[in-house]
C-alpha cells in the first residue's frame, strides 16, 4: 500500500504536518502516486499513521494550496496534474531554487568538497530522473 510508505519520524526537526507534505510530494516525484490518482482520505491516512486527523487535514490543506493535490467535493482528494496551478508552480520553483542555494552555502561551510557535492546531486538525479525526464509535464521545467 502506497500510503503505508509515509512514515512519521518522531526525531525529525520537521513538524508532523510538514513531514506528511514532504513525503507525499516525494511519493509523487518517484511515481508511486500518479497524477489524478485518488489519495487516502484524511480519516484513512490519520488512522494508518496514528496521528491527529486535524494534523493530516492541515497537511492536505497545504498540499492543496501548493497545487499538489485537488479535492473534489463528494468524490475525494486526488493528485493534481502538474500544470494545474501555474502561479503556484512559479512560486514553488523559485523557492526550490533558493533552497538549493541555501544547501550549497551549508555544504560549503561544512567543507564538503566539490566532487562530493556533485556526487550527491548525481545520486539524487539518478533516483528521480531515471528516464531522463522530469516526473511532471514539460511545463514543470524551468526555461
Amino acid at each position, binding site marked *: 500500500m502506497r500510503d503505508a510508505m509515509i512514515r512519521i519520524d518522531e526525531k525529525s526537526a520537521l513538524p*508532523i504536518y510538514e513531514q506528511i507534505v514532504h513525503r507525499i510530494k516525494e511519493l509523487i516525484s518517484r511515481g508511486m502516486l500518479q497524477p489524478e490518482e485518488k489519495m487516502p482520505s484524511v480519516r484513512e491516512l490519520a488512522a494508518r499513521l496514528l496521528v491527529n486527523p486535524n494534523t493530516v487535514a492541515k497537511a492536505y490543506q497545504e498540499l492543496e494550496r501548493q497545487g499538489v493535490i485537488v479535492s473534489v467535493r463528494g468524490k475525494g482528494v486526488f493528485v493534481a496534474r502538474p500544470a494545474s496551478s501555474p502561479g503556484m508552480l512559479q512560486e514553488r520553483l523559485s523557492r526550490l531554487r533558493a533552497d538549493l542555494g541555501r544547501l550549497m552555502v551549508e555544504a560549503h561551510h561544512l567543507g564538503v568538497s566539490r566532487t562530493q557535492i556533485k556526487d550527491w546531486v548525481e545520486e539524487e538525479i539518478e533516483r528521480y530522473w531515471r528516464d531522463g525526464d522530469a516526473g511532471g509535464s514539460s511545463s514543470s521545467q524551468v526555461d
Partner: protein
Amino acid sequence: MLAVRHLHKSIERRPVLKDVSFELRPGMVAGLIGRNGAGKTTLLKTMAGIYDPDAGDVLLEGESVHRQPEIKREIVFLPDNPEALFGYTAEECARLYALIYPRFDRAAFDEMIRRFGLPANRKIRQLSRGMKMLASISLGIATRASYVLLDEPTNGIDPIAKQQVLTLLVEAVSEGMTLLIASHAMGDLERLSDMILMIRQGEVETREIADPARGEAVKLQVVFDGEAPAAWLASPQVIVLEHVGRVYTLLVSREDGDAKLEELRRMRPLVLEELPLGLEDLFVWKHGGRNDEDR
C-alpha cells in the same frame, strides 16, 4: 465547548488544583502532562463530575457539570485501570452503558470488540491489561459522548495493544469527539495532540503542540573549545540535558532575555547547533531539570 473555570480542589487537605482554568474546543485533542502526583487524575475526575470541586466550575456549553448531573452523559472518564467494570463481561458492560448513555452505539462497540478479538463473555477482570484498556476505551467511544477524558490509556500495555488503543483514539477524533489524554508517553502526545496542558504545583498552563516552548527556551548541542565553562553551565537559565564526552545537550531559557546565549556565542564553541525542542524537553525545562520533585 467544555470550560474549566477557576477550579479548586483539595484531597485530604492538600490543595491539588489551585484556580485552574482552560477550555477544550470541540474536535480537538488535548494532552495533559505532569509529574506523578501533580493532580492529573484529580483534574480529570473533577471535570467528569466524579469529584465535586471546592470552588469553581466545569461548564459544558455554559451548563454546570456539577449542578446538572445529566450533563455527565456528555463527558466520559476512562480510568487507567477500569476496576468498576471488573465484575462484568463486555456484553454486560455494553447493556449497562446503553442504559446510561442515550446515544450508545451498540453496533460500533460490537465492531470494535470483534476487531480486537475481545471475548464478549469473559469477565473484564480476567482479561489482560491491554484487553482491559481496549474494552474500556471501546465502551467510552461507543457512548458517542462529546468529551472523553482518558487517564494514561497506553500505560503498561504491549506495543500491539498500544497501536490498537491509538487507532481507536484517532478514529474517535475523526468522528468528531473531543479528547483529553493524560499521559507520560510524550511521543504519543506529540502525534495526537493539538494542545498541551501542563499541570504543575496545582496550576495548569496551556501550550500549542506546534510550538510548545513559544520561543521561551532553546535546545542546543554544544562542544566547547577547551574546558567546559562550569560557572556558565551552573547558571539557573541553563539545564544540561545530556553530557556525552565533549558534547553537551543544553536547554537555555530566554525568559530573562538572551544574555546567556550571547555569553555562549562569545565563548566561540566549536559546535553550536540548535535542535528541535520537543515535549519531553519542555517538561524537563518546566520542572527545573531532572532533580526536581513536585508537591
